[in-house]
């Protein structure tokens, strides 16, 4: 289930001005509403001039007071358009009759489509825009206007829907969200969602994005989402987003939702997820993406929707390739691990690397090249790649082997390859690998982001470590995420992963361009889904910290091998090469290298050897 990337958010947010400008142009060209908000839209000069031309002619006075300039003659046309609009709105929401009824439930398995339809509504057709550009029509009796304008401000329901102010005149109902939303929201302890009074939040609150016309603000108060839009917005033609406030609110909402999920209060959680999605729109960049992914993950958890089959291997490989290209994490992992392996293989004539994380084999060209150029000439290089079975009939492990063999031939390194398919590393046994005696062949074991998956089954990691010991390796290189996403309490895991992935997405923001970045985000998003939405054996993204891995390896009979200064230097150089990479930091921690973004370490490379055996010593 692929997450629809929140690009739609972008497309509709910015050109609102243009859209409404275009709309007013077209509407001007037509016969009806020559209505414009007082706010001048910075658009084509022609349009502007046209605006000014008509500005003084017969404006409705009442509305002019409020800041809208409407021609009285056009009121009827505007009203009609509003009716059409309401129809259009109602059609799209299945269960929404009058926009003022009971709790709205959405088809849970269709969350993506729902979200998409919500978003596409924000990218409205032209007629919508011209209507939006219209200020509230006076309706039949002026007093009604005032009343309805004032009403929302007095209303005590935070969730009164303000869409569009005009509509209130159409039907005198103030669109209030269902009372259940109210109580749900009020139930949040400590008023994490509501901060301060009604009025306060009305002034600070804005779901609006930076609109250049007051009308565009109305676009965001979609009725079906429990938006708090307390006060009457029409008196504020310019609404600037206070995204920092919203950012805080967003985080609170996320935490509250996770808490609700943990307490199995699914109605509340459901309401909160919708708010999160809505709040996320007001953010920009990394925060929005993270929030959207986490919201979707929470939704999946709430509705118990999660694809049973793991992602098709070729697809996950492709995502990982993009992740490899966009940011330095995988490259850092490969280069540092290679350096450790290179040093361990010093002086050996025949070497054998067992790779638990074969994927596309991107780690090995660099090692082979370093071996080819080492003083004394290259050793005979043997590689055993272990990977999961592929769902299609292609034998991708073999394909990778062929490519590597081609490379080896080019650089004149004697090469041998074997691919192993295993559902889980715990199925492996040392005898399957046809290891040769250790005087003949030196062994290294490599695992990049694979070991944590074993933690979903009890006993698996211990078995694998004992099998590794049986292989008698010179060195075991391990790269893992530096985070604890495997705690017993859901809320703790949620909080940890929220911080972790926020930092990760922040670091991605600096990288250039389009498709690669999007794919990397999807790659990370899949991890988020797994951490948040799954349980039991389905949840395999069980990251643990370096300290925890140290304990595990220590108790399994391994001793740490220090990564040398060469590895540190290479890693630092590599990071310096990355565009937008000023925030990356390499740290050394007791012989292990950590790559982080600013102050937060994100991945850790460590190397291990059998306890009681010194590297390179002869027995």
């Amino acid at each position, binding site marked *: 289930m692929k997450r629809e990337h929140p690009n739609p958010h972008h497309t509709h947010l910015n050109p609102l001005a243009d859209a409404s400008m275009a709309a007013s142009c077209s509407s001007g060209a037509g016969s009806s509403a020559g209505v414009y908000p007082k706010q001048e839209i910075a658009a084509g000069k022609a349009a502007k001039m046209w605006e000014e031309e008509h500005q003084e002619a017969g404006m409705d006075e009442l509305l002019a007071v409020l800041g809208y300039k409407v021609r009285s003659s056009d009121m009827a046309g505007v009203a009609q358009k509003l009716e059409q609009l309401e129809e259009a709105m109602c059609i799209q929401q299945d269960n929404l009759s009058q926009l003022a009824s009971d709790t709205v439930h959405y088809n849970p398995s269709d969350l993506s489509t729902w979200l998409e339809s919500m978003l596409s509504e924000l990218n409205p057709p032209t007629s919508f825009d011209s209507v939006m550009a219209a200020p509230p029509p006076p309706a039949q009796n002026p007093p009604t206007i005032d009343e309805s304008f004032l009403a929302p401000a007095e209303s005590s329901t935070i969730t009164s829907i303000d869409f569009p102010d005009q509509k209130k005149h159409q039907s005198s109902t103030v669109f209030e969200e269902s009372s259940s939303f109210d109580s749900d929201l009020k139930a949040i302890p400590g008023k994490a969602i509501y901060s301060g009074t009604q009025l306060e939040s009305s002034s600070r609150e804005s779901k609006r994005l930076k609109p250049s016309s007051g009308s565009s603000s109305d676009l965001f108060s979609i009725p079906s989402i429990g938006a708090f839009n307390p006060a009457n917005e029409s008196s504020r033609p310019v609404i600037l987003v206070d995204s920092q406030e919203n950012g805080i609110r967003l985080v609170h909402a996320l935490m509250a939702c996770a808490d609700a999920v943990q307490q199995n209060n699914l109605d509340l959680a459901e309401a909160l997820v919708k708010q999160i999605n809505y709040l996320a729109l007001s953010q920009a960049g990394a925060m929005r993406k993270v929030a959207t992914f986490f919201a979707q993950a929470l939704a999946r958890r709430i509705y118990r929707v999660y694809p049973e089959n793991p992602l098709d291997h070729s697809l996950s490989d492709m995502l990982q390739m993009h992740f490899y290209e966009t940011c330095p994490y995988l490259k850092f992992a490969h280069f540092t691990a290679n350096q450790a392996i290179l040093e361990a293989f010093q002086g050996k004539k025949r070497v054998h690397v067992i790779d638990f994380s074969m994927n596309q084999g991107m780690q090995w*060209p660099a090692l082979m090249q370093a071996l080819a150029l080492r003083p004394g000439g290259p050793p005979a290089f043997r590689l055993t790649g272990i990977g999961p079975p592929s769902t299609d009939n292609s034998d991708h492990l073999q394909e990778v082997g062929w490519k590597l063999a081609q490379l080896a031939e080019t650089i*004149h390194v004697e090469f041998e390859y074997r691919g192993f398919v295993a559902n889980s590393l715990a199925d492996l046994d040392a005898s399957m690998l046809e290891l040769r005696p250790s005087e003949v062949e030196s062994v290294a074991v490599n695992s990049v982001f694979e070991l944590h998956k074993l933690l979903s089954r009890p006993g698996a990691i211990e078995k694998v470590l004992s099998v590794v010991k049986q292989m008698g390796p010179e060195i075991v290189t391990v790269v893992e995420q530096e985070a604890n996403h495997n705690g017993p309490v859901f809320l703790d895991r949620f909080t940890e992963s929220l911080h972790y992935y926020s930092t990760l997405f922040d670091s991605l923001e600096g990288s250039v361009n389009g498709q690669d970045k999007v794919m990397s985000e999807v790659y990370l998003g899949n991890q988020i889904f797994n951490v948040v939405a799954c349980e039991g054996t389905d949840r395999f993204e069980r990251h643990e910290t370096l300290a925890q891995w140290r304990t595990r390896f220590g108790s399994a009979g391994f001793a740490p091998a220090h990564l040398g200064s060469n590895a540190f230097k290479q890693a630092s150089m590599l990071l310096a090469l990355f565009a937008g990479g000023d925030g990356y930091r390499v740290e050394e921690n007791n012989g292990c290298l950590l790559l982080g973004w600013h102050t937060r370490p994100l991945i850790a490379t460590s190397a291990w050897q059998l306890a009681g055996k010194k590297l390179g010593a002869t027995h």
Partner: protein
Amino acid sequence: MKLNIMEEEEERPKIFINDHIDILVEILKRLDGQSLGVAACVCRLWSAVARNDSLWEHLCFRHVSSPPPSSVRPVVVALGGYKRLYMVCVRPVLSRLGDSGLVRRVWTRNEVQLSLSLFCVDYYERLGGSGMISSDASPSSLMFLCKPVNV
């Protein structure tokens, strides 16, 4: 009028550089990468001379503190040649890690090693699915080197 000019021209000694390829090579060896690229656009002869990989080899390792071991050359040649090494790896690495291009700095062994590793990854990526080199495939994993630094 014309006669005068022709007389003047005959008096000056004529050195036509294209007659002396070895001198041309020596001159080109001392150019920086960009100038070498420009020189390659002058005429067909110069283009052929500039394509000579040894010129680029000289350029790549000009500032290395100690000359690279002899085993490097066959590897680099097999992976695509020095010109490609320079264009794809050395130039971006130098410009990112070094000071401005005018200041000649000495490469460290680690930087050389890093460039070579990246070059090898580039070759591997271009291998494509069947093991054949697809020349039009862009080495995407090295694109991060060529992209402008984002502020």
